[in-house]
């Protein structure tokens, strides 16, 4: 499954400065593995050492938070849009 991944500026530097890129996976967990393969070090931006998604980082499948879908096991299909968004505190 090829999906389009959107990231914010904070994460951008971990994926060669891109705002959007294509990656593969049939679930969110697989997608993150694929992104980590392409951009080593990416995972540490959004997950803790135990492989848990940081609770200040939200992942959206299209416009829905994956916490309300299947979490990391949320299944993906071709053409889906996945957005990875950490909290921002700037004011």
């Amino acid at each position, binding site marked *: 499954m090829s999906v389009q991944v959107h990231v914010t500026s904070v994460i951008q530097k971990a994926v060669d400065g891109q705002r959007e890129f294509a990656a593969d996976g049939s679930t969110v967990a697989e997608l993150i593995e694929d992104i980590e393969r392409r951009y080593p070090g990416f995972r540490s931006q959004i997950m803790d050492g135990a492989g848990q998604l940081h*609770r200040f980082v*939200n992942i959206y499948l299209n416009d829905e938070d994956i916490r309300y879908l299947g979490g990391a096991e949320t299944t993906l299909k071709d053409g889906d849009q996945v957005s990875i968004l950490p909290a*921002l505190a*700037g004011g």
Partner: protein
Amino acid sequence: MAVSVYIPSPFRRLTQNHEYVSVEGRNVAEVLAAVDQRYPGFGNLVYDRDRAIPAHINIYVNNQEIHDLSGTDTTVADGDQVAVIPALAGGAPDADRATNGHTPAGNPAALSPEEVMRYSRHIIMGQVGPTGQRKLRNAKVLIVGAGGLGSPVAIYLALAGVGTVGIVEFDTVDLSNLQRQLLHQTEDVGKTKMQSAVETLNAYNPHVTVRQHEAPITSDNAMEIIRDYDYVVNGADNFATRYLVNDACYLLGKTLVDGSILLFDGQATVFKPGQGCYRCLYPTPPPPGLVPSCAEAGVLGAITGIIGSIQATEVFKQVLDIGQPLVGRLLLVDALTMEFRTMKLRRDPECPLCGDHPTVTELIDYDQFCGSPPLVAPGATGAAHH
């Protein structure tokens, strides 16, 4: 079709002091023509040179403004009441008196001619009108932080005539603030941000009362500060203050208009108690150092204007109760791709604050919660609202 026409006091010199005039007509235009025929000159008061109803005059048929009906083509039936209300004479409260016989709650004071002129681009819009303008004047809005986001929010609310704007801020103006913080100018460097903000807002609109809360907002004072306001806008620059303001607003039942920025990104949403809160969106703060601040990573000056303007717009909509608020939606702005997207935001039943089994029932120690050093005293650096 005999209809009763309410004549506002400034026009009664033409109607021999009659408050109500009974005339015949099938629609509003005919009714106005009939009054003009009986009391020549009346038409010149209610029509402009192009024979249109000018913006400062509202005409009501049984309490409904004719803009919301069919204008002067609105048909009238026997026994209907038509009220002619110039904004200068008090607008809707007069109309209510005329048609309902009672005065509604709220400040009935009329808008002054200067106010009508100043806010005319708002007042002529059907969604605002003199009644909406008085709602804005009666509104009390608290802005946390007079920095990047707080500046455009405060300025647009002051320009719009929001009667009471409260500001929480204790920092001083630094040269590095001027790249984005519209309230402060070069000559203000070294002044307190509060003084600079008050001067700027007074210069923009002397009608606005600026309430000054010149101390860090903490668990000890947050409830007391926020309690008096109708709406709260978050322009804080750190996670501890964001969780604190979120919790206090929820506990007090206040709607919180949230916005945040970093680098080229912005986020905005509106938290209405019971429909999701900041903790539903981000259950726990990042450990210190994991998400950089604007001071560490940088921020595009203009993104503060985009997000701040969106926050001001949401306040405006809340006060006037118009449109679809940004409730249950997280708006994401990416200035580099210039894409605006919205994500769904839900109330989390597991939320410790607003969930089904809350464990946070009063304010906590937010510095400890965020693992950050406590906010420092006024005059010190590094802990204010950028």
